[in-house]
C-alpha cells in the first residue's frame, strides 16, 4: 500500500474520470485507491461511511452503474467512466427523497452511521422492485448491518417509502441508462 500511496496526487497517477451524483469528476489518485477513500478524501463526500473495510457491514454502499457496491472493495480504477450515486445525491433539489422522508418519520435512523449505506441499498431495491414485500426488503438489506434499530423500523420505513411516491422514484431513477453501462464490479451482498 505505501508504495502506491507515495505516488498520491503526483503526475504519475492517471486521471480517472467518473460521474458522481450527476457531476463529472476527475481525480489523480493511485488506481488501487479504494473508491471509498476517493469519495471521502479527494471529493469530500463524507456521507459514505467506513464500518469494517472488508465488505461486511455495508456502511460504504454506493450505487455504481446500477449496481449496489461496497465502495471499500472497489479500486477506483474500476470506476473509470462509471456513474456513481452516493447519499449526497439522493435528495433532489434539496427535497428529501421518499426514503429519507420515511426513515425520518418511522425511526429508520438512530445513530445514523449505517444510514447512508442503508438508504443506498433501499434505493437500489426500490429501483428494481417498486413494490417489495417484507421478504424482498429483508433480503435486499441483508448486506447492511445496523446495530441500533434491530432493523424493524428500517423495514417499515422502506415499506412506507414505496407507498409515499413510486412516481417520484420513477422520475428520478437513472436505472435505464445505468443498466446499459453495467460492468463487472464487486457486488454488495
Amino acid at each position, binding site marked *: 500500500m505505501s508504495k502506491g500511496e507515495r505516488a498520491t496526487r503526483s503526475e504519475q497517477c492517471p486521471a480517472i474520470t467518473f460521474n458522481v451524483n450527476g457531476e463529472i469528476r476527475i481525480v489523480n489518485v493511485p488506481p488501487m485507491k479504494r473508491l471509498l477513500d476517493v469519495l471521502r478524501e479527494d471529493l469530500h463526500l463524507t*456521507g459514505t461511511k467506513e*464500518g469494517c473495510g472488508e465488505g461486511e457491514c455495508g456502511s460504504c454502499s454506493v450505487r455504481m452503474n446500477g449496481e449496489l457496491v461496497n465502495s471499500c472493495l472497489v479500486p477506483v480504477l474500476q470506476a473509470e467512466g462509471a456513474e456513481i450515486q452516493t447519499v449526497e445525491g439522493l435528495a433532489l433539489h434539496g427535497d428529501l427523497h421518499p426514503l429519507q422522508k420515511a426513515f425520518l418519520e418511522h425511526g429508520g435512523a438512530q445513530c*445514523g452511521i449505517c444510514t447512508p449505506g442503508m438508504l443506498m441499498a433501499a434505493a437500489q431495491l426500490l429501483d428494481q422492485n417498486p413494490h417489495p414485500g417484507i421478504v424482498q426488503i429483508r433480503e435486499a438489506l441483508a448486506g447492511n448491518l445496523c*446495530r441500533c*434499530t434491530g432493523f*424493524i423500523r428500517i423495514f417499515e420505513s422502506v415499506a412506507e417509502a414505496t407507498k409515499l411516491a413510486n412516481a417520484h422514484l420513477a422520475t428520478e431513477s437513472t436505472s435505464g441508462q445505468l443498466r446499459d453501462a453495467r460492468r463487472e464490479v464487486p457486488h454488495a451482498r
Partner: protein
Amino acid sequence: MSTPAKTRVVGASVPRKEGVDKLMGRACYVDDIEREGMWHGATVRSGIPRGLIRSITFDRRIDWSEFAIVTAADIPGENCIQLIVADQPCVADGKVNHCEEAILLLAHPDKHKLREAVSAVQIEYEPLPAIFTIEESERQDVIVWGADNLLKSFLLEKGDIDSAWAGAAHIVEGEYRTGAQEHLYIENQGMIAEYSAKSGVTVWGSLQCPYYVFKALRPVFDLPEDKIRVIQTETGGAFGGKEDYPSIIACHAALLAMKSGHPVKMVYDRMEDLAATTKRHPSRVRHRTALDRDGKLLAMEIDLATDGGAYATLSSTVLSRATLHSTGPYLCPNIRARATSWATNYIPYGAFRGFGAPQAIFAMERHMDEIAAALAIDPVELRRRNFLHVGDNNATEQQMREPVILDQLLDRALKESDYHARRAQFARDNPASAIKRGLGIAAFYHGSGFTGSGEVYLNSQAGIDLTPEGKVRVLASNTEFGQGTNTVLTQVAAEALGIDYAAVSMASPDTGIVPNSGPTVASRTSMVVGRIIERAASQLLALLREHAGLGSTYTQRDFFAACQRYRASHGEVVSLCRYEAPPGIVWDDQKYHGEAYGASAWAVYVAQVAVDTVTYSAEVEDFWAVQEVGRVIHPVMAAGQVEGGIAQGIGYALYEKVVWQDGRMANNQMTNYIMPTAQDVPPIHVYFEQIPFRYGGFGAKGIGELPHDGPAPAILNAIRDATGVAFNAIPLLPEDLYAGLVATEEMAPR
C-alpha cells in the same frame, strides 16, 4: 392506572432533532473532520498477555525522524486513566497486563505510513504467567492484580438464610454462564486532539461522556480545568462501549498532538476496535433456591462472579448492578447474594447496555424455568406466585412504593402472544417434526439511573438558555448516539416552556459550553436529566413572569418577547437546575440495604424459537415485549430502543461469541464475529403500559437498557420448552446445541 396528563410535544413522535443531517449524509462524525495540518496517530500494542518490557527496537528501514513518538516518559502528569480505581496506565511503563496495552504511540502526516511503522517496532519481553478464567483467578495461584486478584466484592443479605433450608419442600440448584459480548457500534472509536501551551488540550470525538474524558485528560496533562475542552462529535452507536474507552484514545491523541505540534486524528479500524476496546463482562452465576410445597420462594443463595479483565475500570459498578438484579422481580424472605469480580489478563471488560443486569437476569430467569421443571409447575404460574407487589420489600428491603404491575404485564404478554394456544399447538406438532418449537418467558426489571447514592453524588446540573441569536437551547452534557437524547430533551423543554419543538435546539455537547449533567449511561437521561430540564424550564418561566412581564397565558411570540425584555434588563437568559433526589431515598452502601433505585422499569418478554434437529440451528421466529417504562416521551423512538435492544439480546443468546486465543480476540472482524442481520431478526411486537413516574422528566423512567435484559433467558427457556433440554450457557451456537441434544439423546432410554 392514572392517565398521562395531556401534552402537546411529549408523547408525540416528532422528527429526530438531527435526523435530516443524518439522512442527507451531512452529520459530522469524527472521521469526517479534518483539521489544518492534521497528522494521524496509531498505537503500538503489547501482543502478549503479561510480562515485563525488556527492550524496544526501532527498525532502521523506517525514517523515524518523520514520526512523533510518545512513550510513558512523555506524559507530563500522571500515567493513569482516571475512572474509579487509579490502576490503568495511559501508556505501559515497564510491564503489560493484557495483549492490547499501549506501549508506544506514533503520529505521522500520512496515515498510510503508520501501519508499516507500527509493525517495525520490536518489543522484547520477559513473559510472566497469565490467567484467563474466573476459576484461575479465584485459585490465586497466580496474582495478576492487587493482593488477591479480587477487583470487587459485594454481600447482599436479607432475612436468615441459614435457617431457611431445613423447612424447604424443594431445593433447586443451577449454574449459569454468559460470554463476552462486543458492542459492535458501526462507527469505530476515534478522536482528534489539538494542543497548545496557551489553550491547553482540546479533543473532538466519538464518545458518550464528555466529562469522563475531561476528568481523564486533566491528571495526564496536569492542566487546570480551563485548559481542557472535550467536544462530542456525532457518534455512530455506543451501547456503553464509548463510556470509558474514549478516555484512553483522547489521552493518546492529545499526547501525540502535544509531541508533534499538530492536530492528531486517531481512528481505529475495525480489527483494532474489536481487539482493543471493552466488551461485556463474562459471568458465572450459581443459584441455590429453597421453595415451599406451593412453589413459593423461601430462600435464595446466589454466588455471582464476573471476569473483569486486567484493570478495575467499571467492574465494581457493573458488579453492583448485577448483584442488585440477581434476585429477579420476586418476593423472597431470605436472601444471600455474594458477588465477586476477578482480574484476568484479558482487555478490561466494560460498560455494555444493561451493565451487569443481563448476566444476572439470564441466570435468574433460566433458573426459574429449572425450578418450574423440578416442581412440575408451569413456568408462568411459578413466576406469578412469586412476583413482587406494591408494599412488598425487595432484596435490599426497599419497600415497593411505586406501582408494580407485573401481573398485568404478564397477562398482556400471554394474551398478545396467544401463549397457551401456541404452546398447546407446539406440543401437538413437535413429536412428528424435525423442527421443534417452543415458547419461553422472562420477567424482569431494570433500575433506572445511577445505583444508590450515585445520582446524589453526581449532583448533575442542566438547564436552558437563550443564545445570542435569540434561540432557546438545552444545556446538558448528555449526548446523542442514536438513542434520542437530542430529541427527548428538547421535547421536554418545548413542552415545559409551552413553545414549539422546532423552536428548541440542543447546545453542542462541549465542556466549554454545557454544564456537567452526568454521563449518558444507566438509562438515566430521560428520567433524571429530563426532570432537571423540566424544572429548569419552570424556573425560567417564573423568572420571565416575575421580571419580564410574561402573562399567565402566552403565545410563542410572547415568550420570546419576554426573553428579549429579560435580556435587556437582566443580561443573560439562563436557567440551570441541579438534581434533586426523590424523597425517601435512603441507601446504605456498606450493607447493600435500602432504595437502590428511585424507579425501575418492568417487563415480561416472550420468545418463540424453532430448533432444527437436523441442522442444529435455533431461530427466534417471533417476539413479544411488554413493558412499563413510565411515561413514553417519544413512542417511535421508544419502540426503536426496545427493538434494537432485543436484536442485541438475540445476538447475545445465539450468535455473538468472542473467541479468545492466548488472551487475544481471534475473531476480531465482522466476517467472523456474527451479529443478527436483517434476515435474522423476527417480527418484534412492542407494547407499553404507561404509569407516569412523578420524579422523572414528564413521567419518564429508564428505557435504554431494559430490552437487553430479557431476550437471552426467554430464548433459552423457549429452547428448553422446545427440546426438553436445559441449556445454561450463552452464546448457544449450533455446535453447543448439537452437543447438548446428542448427549441427551444418548442418555435417553430407548
